[in-house]
């Protein structure tokens, strides 16, 4: 077998989360109009202000058109053919405790390696699991409540904490922000809500697990995290979906708010179904993630490992409003087969002495296309702002591509902006060196790629860093040109 054929075979490892759970679900019929929006809001028994907000978003969405500026090729999406709500059928209105959750659902999460149950091996991590459109169960509630931390599904928060929702929802990503965020604002069905009170250090990692199960369903979840003054929280989201040969839309919105001296660390391990090697099927992952360092000395740190999805289109960003606030973005994005990734970040410096760091590692293999797109913007008010950007691309094989689009807008002369970029291949020298030490080709490539990603992986919480490495190993083995 030629070396190239071996590589092809190694790269062609299958997606491991592609099973479908046979579970009865209640879905709204496909289609989208004001009535759909009202129905979703009614199912959720939402307060009036929220229904109005959704409708406002929907009416605005009708005036917008799909953006086409990204370095990706998208099949046209028929928004009327999608169902905007799908929920596993429950005996009552919703599970009150883990015991009431359908065992099949729990088994699904078990298969995914997300143990919901408190006794399970990820002890110390509180998990909120979102299955299709609704939040299924949140573990570790009691311990969090004792600390004063609110961690629940978005739906529950609208019932129990409407004042917080009304105050903060849309305050970072307004409903008019962009096409997909606007759509999400109209039809979002669930998601996670976190509030960390003043001075509290959240006693455990918080985690949400997203899974798309139903066919022809869009997933539109919404996450809102508020870290009050002097508080600290670390949050992780993971995602998977079954293998289906049509494209599925995932258009989420995540809003983070950090007040004075607060810190939010948000980590993502995204492994949505990427489609097959010919580019059939896979998730369209069009997500708006933005955090605002609203308070002084606050800090927001995004870490993402993006290995899945047919198309990834997301730019977790930081608005650095508070003086001395800090924004960070650490990213590993992989595009294999025919995957397309257009991802990066925006760092908007508004406050004085604000600092931001961007470390982006793009890996392209097969016919994957990987683009880094980043904006560093320094407004006139941001005296002494500093940014450091490092942007590295690794290519495997001759048919993939890496693209870098760094945008810099500086309106204050005291700013310091540094940008470093590199593009490299796994060199034959490196590979042969490892082989000569007796290490098999597949292991050698993993070793080299993991080394390339190390500065990002070290930002992940320990147990997820291991998961991320394994995920990368499965998604990409042996591709060398």
């Amino acid at each position, binding site marked *: 077998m030629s*070396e190239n054929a071996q590589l092809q075979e190694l790269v062609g490892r299958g997606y491991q989360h592609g099973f479908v759970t046979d579970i009865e679900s209640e879905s709204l019929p496909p289609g989208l109009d004001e009535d759909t929006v009202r129905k979703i809001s009614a199912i959720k028994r939402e307060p009036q202000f929220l229904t109005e907000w959704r409708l406002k978003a929907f009416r605005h969405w009708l005036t917008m058109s799909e953006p086409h500026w990204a370095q990706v090729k998208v099949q046209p999406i028929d928004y009327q053919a999608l169902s905007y709500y799908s929920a596993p059928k429950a005996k009552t209105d919703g599970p009150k405790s883990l015991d009431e959750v359908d065992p099949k659902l729990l088994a699904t999460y078990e298969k995914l390696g997300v143990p919901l149950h408190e006794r399970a091996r990820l002890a110390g991590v509180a998990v909120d699991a979102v299955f299709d459109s609704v939040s299924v169960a949140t573990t570790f509630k009691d311990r969090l409540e004792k600390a004063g931390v609110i961690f629940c599904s978005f739906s529950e928060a609208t019932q129990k904490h409407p004042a917080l929702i009304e105050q903060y929802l849309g305050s970072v990503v307004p409903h008019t922000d962009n096409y997909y965020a606007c759509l999400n604002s109209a039809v979002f069905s669930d998601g996670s809500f976190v509030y960390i009170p003043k001075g509290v250090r959240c006693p455990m990692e918080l985690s949400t697990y997203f899974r798309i199960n139903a066919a022809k369903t869009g997933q539109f979840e919404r996450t809102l995290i508020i870290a009050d003054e002097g508080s600290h929280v670390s949050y992780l989201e993971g995602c998977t979906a079954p293998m289906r040969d049509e494209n599925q839309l995932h258009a989420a919105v995540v809003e983070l708010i950090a007040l004075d001296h607060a810190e939010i660390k948000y980590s993502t391990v995204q492994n949505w179904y990427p489609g097959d090697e010919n580019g059939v099927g896979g998730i369209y992952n069009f997500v708006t993630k933005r955090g605002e360092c609203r308070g002084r000395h606050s800090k927001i740190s995004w870490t993402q490992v993006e290995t899945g999805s047919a198309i990834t289109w997301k730019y977790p960003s930081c608005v650095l409003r508070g003086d001395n606030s800090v924004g960070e973005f650490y990213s590993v994005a992989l595009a294999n087969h025919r995957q397309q990734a257009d991802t990066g970040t925006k760092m908007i410096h508004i406050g004085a002495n604000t600092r931001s760091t961007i470390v982006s590692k793009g890996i392209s293999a097969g016919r994957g296309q990987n683009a880094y797109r980043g904006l560093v913007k320094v407004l006139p008010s941001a005296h002494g702002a500093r940014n450091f950007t490092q942007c590295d691309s690794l290519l495997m094989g001759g048919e993939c591509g890496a693209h870098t689009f760094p945008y810099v807008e500086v309106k204050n002369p005291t700013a310091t902006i540094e940008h470093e970029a590199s593009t490299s291949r796994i*060199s*034959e*020298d*490196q590979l*042969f*060196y*490892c*082989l*000569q*030490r*007796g*290490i*098999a*080709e597949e*292991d050698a490539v993993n*070793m*080299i790629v*993991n*080394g*390339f*990603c*190390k*500065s990002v992986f070290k930002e992940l919480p320990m147990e997820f860093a291991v998961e991320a490495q394994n995920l990368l190993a499965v998604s990409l083995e042996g591709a060398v040109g």
Partner: protein
Amino acid sequence: MLEIKDLRTKVGDREVLRGLNLAVRPGEVHAIMGPNGSGKSTLAYTLAGRPGYEVSGGSVAYRGKDLLGLAPEERAQAGVFLGFQYPVEIPGVNNVYLLKAALNAARKHRGLPEVDAFEFLTLVRDKMKLMQMDESFLSRGVNEGFSGGEKKRNEILQMLVLEPTLALLDETDSGLDIDALKIVAHGVNTLRSAERAIVLVTHYQRLLDYIKPDHVHVLARGQIIKSGAPELALELEERGYDWLLGEAA
């Protein structure tokens, strides 16, 4: 241990090795000298199985078996070690991690279980002391930011940990100051034993002041054109290669 017969190697369109013969028995140290471009590194790469070094004729038997039929990693696992002339940097991969993976690959080949973490560290620390290397080497990336001398010492460290049966050292002495040369030579000498063989590829006699070879060969135009006792190296140092090249032509 190593029986090379009429070996021919092409690099691209060029035939670099043109019928090379060499026999190495267990316990021996052979020095291969020769002018630039004579094929010394090509010989080392061919034996290690580097892609792009195409064998167009001849045979190589290693411990009685065909070496050329093995993949590069299989040769390494079978105890063939190449100390590189220019060791490559692998950013972000710890030295200690690579070393452990390499050792475990060799152990697996011999049907042994993975090395115990504590035992491994004790072993590596011991060898590092021998090579006078700082503890911080372990956590640094493979050859990342190493000086030329540090890279060479790291090669010998790896060799000492892996304990190969046949060590091919490609210009291990180049770029070393006299102190580092002594350390490297000491490291190589500790590996000498009745079961092992070492092939030194070098330009200079000075390495051979510290590692005494049993045989010295002159490689020119892709062939061994002269073999002799250690004194041959001294003669080469004095007279250069021209007199031999004239003889061979």
